[in-house]
């Protein structure tokens, strides 16, 4: 667990960036990305912005796996692209190994590009169909002028073996491989430059369950054996838990909670983390059926648009604990009393640090509430609770 590497000073508001001096490989402060929207009449102009990422702080330490979870539109993928500088940040600071790369140009980035690699979600579109596996994996080495001992081809064959593919397939084309194998090719390409950090954006979500596990195990072995740090971006909470020592939960462009794995999954404080965890369908019988085990929280509606996010706390429109203060004041991401070091939560009215079933389920969805209370739809107040 990485909480021992953090040195949060006190119980009150300690932003993450101050908590981890020295050891961070990649640090991010106030990172912001707004995609402008144009419209209006008669002359088109900037009328607003998609606030995809809105001021996040995080740090990835050497050799650790940092997980970033959230639902669609929370900005986790944009964050990944900002960190690898595939996108230009609107604001904030990205520091890699002490060097500010926020607005670094091509030349300055060149040496860093080889140290930060990316693995993409779609194993079908992220590989050039006209290139052989050999040139896909060897290409980055050539561009970066790397000449490993024994030659590039030798190294590519080694890499193929590392990711569990047959080195004999050096001259084959991507379409000759299955989805899982293609994702392995993507992993081998990322490994070719011996990176220190891999940003993996939903690397397994396009794969079948049985293949997904193969790739997760592969990545986990690489992380452990080669000491590569990972920023693991995914919507699947169970996969992130399995893979990451520290986890940040994002909602509408903000980090709402961050901490070590145990804190996030077993002692969450933010209502949204609670809601997310309770929504994960588990392939177990007892938890779901017998009313013991995990709490049951059902939110209403979908995530609001990041074009016009709610004021104050962005989760308040779907939160059962929201009060006036939540609309006026944005909660800072701080260490709450009772939280472990490095476990930060952005909430004015945090939940109890447990995921155990409550006396009453939290049901906000009006249709569910109506069905479960046996009343007509629409009669429910803003907050509904169903007795067990």
């Amino acid at each position, binding site marked *: 667990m990485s909480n021992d590497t953090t040195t949060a000073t006190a119980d009150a508001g300690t932003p993450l960036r101050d908590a981890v001096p020295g050891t961070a490989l990649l640090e991010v402060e106030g990172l912001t990305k707004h995609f402008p929207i144009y419209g209006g009449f008669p002359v088109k102009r900037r009328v607003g912005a998609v606030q995809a990422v809105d001021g996040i702080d995080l740090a990835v330490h050497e050799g650790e796996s940092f997980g970033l979870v959230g*639902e*669609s539109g929370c900005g986790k993928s944009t964050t990944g692209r900002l960190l690898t500088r595939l996108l230009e940040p609107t604001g904030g600071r990205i520091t890699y190994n002490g060097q500010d790369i926020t607005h670094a140009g091509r030349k300055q980035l060149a040496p860093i590009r080889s140290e930060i690699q990316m693995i993409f979600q779609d194993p079908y579109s992220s590989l050039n169909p006209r290139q052989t596996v050999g040139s896909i994996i060897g290409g980055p080495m050539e561009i970066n002028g790397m000449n490993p001992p024994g030659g590039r081809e030798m190294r590519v064959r080694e890499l193929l073996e590392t990711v569990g593919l047959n080195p004999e397939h050096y001259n084959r084309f991507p379409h000759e491989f*299955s989805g*899982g*194998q293609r994702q392995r090719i993507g992993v081998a390409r990322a490994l070719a430059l011996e990176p220190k950090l891999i940003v993996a954006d939903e690397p397994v979500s396009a794969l*079948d*369950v*049985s*293949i*997904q*596990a*193969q790739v*997760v*195990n592969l990545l*986990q072995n690489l992380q452990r054996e080669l000491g590569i740090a990972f920023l693991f971006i995914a*919507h*699947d*909470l*169970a*996969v992130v*838990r*399995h893979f990451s020592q520290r986890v940040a939960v994002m909602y509408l462009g903000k980090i709402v909670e961050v901490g070590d*794995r145990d804190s996030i*999954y077993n002692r969450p404080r933010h209502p949204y983390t609670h*809601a*997310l*965890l*309770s*929504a*994960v*369908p*588990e*392939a*177990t*019988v007892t*938890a*779901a*059926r017998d009313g013991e085990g*995990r709490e049951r929280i*059902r*939110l*209403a*509606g*979908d*995530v609001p648009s990041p074009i016009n996010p709610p004021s104050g706390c962005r989760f308040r429109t779907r939160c059962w604990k929201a009060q006036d203060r939540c609309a006026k004041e944005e909660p800072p991401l701080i260490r709450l009393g009772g939280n472990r070091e490095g476990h930060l939560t952005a909430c004015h009215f945090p939940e109890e640090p447990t995921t155990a079933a409550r006396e009453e389920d939290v049901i906000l*969805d*009006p*249709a*569910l509430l*109506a*069905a*479960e209370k046996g009343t007509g*739809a*629409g009669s429910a107040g803003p907050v509904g609770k169903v007795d067990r």
Partner: protein
Amino acid sequence: MTTLTKTEDSPAPTGADPFLSVRDLYVRFSTEDGIVKAVDGLSFDLERGRTLGIVGESGSGKSVTNLAVLGLHNPKSTTISGEILLDGQELTGAREKTLERLRGNKMAMIFQDPLTALSPYYTVGRQIAEPFVKHTGASKREGRLRAVEMLGKVGIPQPQTRVDDYPHQFSGGMRQRAMIAMSLVCNPSLLIADEPTTALDVTVQAQILDLLKDLQQEFGSAIILITHDLGVVANTADDILVMYAGRAVERGSVKEVLQSPRHPYTWGLLGSMPRLSGDVEQPLKPIPGTPPSLLNPPPGCPFHPRCAYTGEVGGDRCSSERPVLPEGRGGACHLTAERKQSIFIEDIQPALG
């Protein structure tokens, strides 16, 4: 399923005859590369008011089976044999007019991606009202009122105004709710939900699955829930049918299949899934290899090339003799029942955490 052990909390079945009965279903597509054996001798039963979860990975034949039930396959390139009995009525080879009267009326379907599954050109209300008007002979006005009522039931706020919206004006979760409203508008006895929540966010998925369960109580439909996610069926279904390479490899109640699975493929699925409660130091136990091509599925047990236990069966039975899936609870595997149980308890269960 009459022959299945019931879970305690599910209602007892009412009749002796299953409402939907599929027997020896074969579905084959002719393609340029050859004949795809998409469904290969599948049998299952479903009773009124119960939910059957069909679980499998891509290419397992789970979606094809259900398109065949509704008769939505392409008749030119598809050959279907076997029996599909819906409430005693034979559906394979039924006339198109007969099927049209049943579709959307007695049997309805929810598709995976509500964005592409709803027409962008017509209002949500019109699309919901259409089958109601067609099957009940209601007027357009009555159809619209019914659409408003249904939208309210599935939890769309202000249904009176949202009924005139187009699908693109709805959010992803609302679109799937509209889809559910559309499928339930004629009170179908059979509802087939094909990966209904795969395209949705996890918090929305939880809402939709619970909603389906609640609406089933009200409408009394039998549901077939097709999914790749054992977690989804664990919460929603009564019974599970696990499919692999176009065949059913295991069936039983949710409790039976999840707590004492009897097929190596099911073990593999369970071992592949990370859990919120599992031991993080314990690596996942993936199934080696990749699913077979349905153009040329392996002989005998289709799972044998990926199976770790073929050695225990002896001889080449796994690659030559097709294992039979017993009626009711069971798995299509040559291992003895005792051996299966001991393997699960000794090898598999400890790793599940």
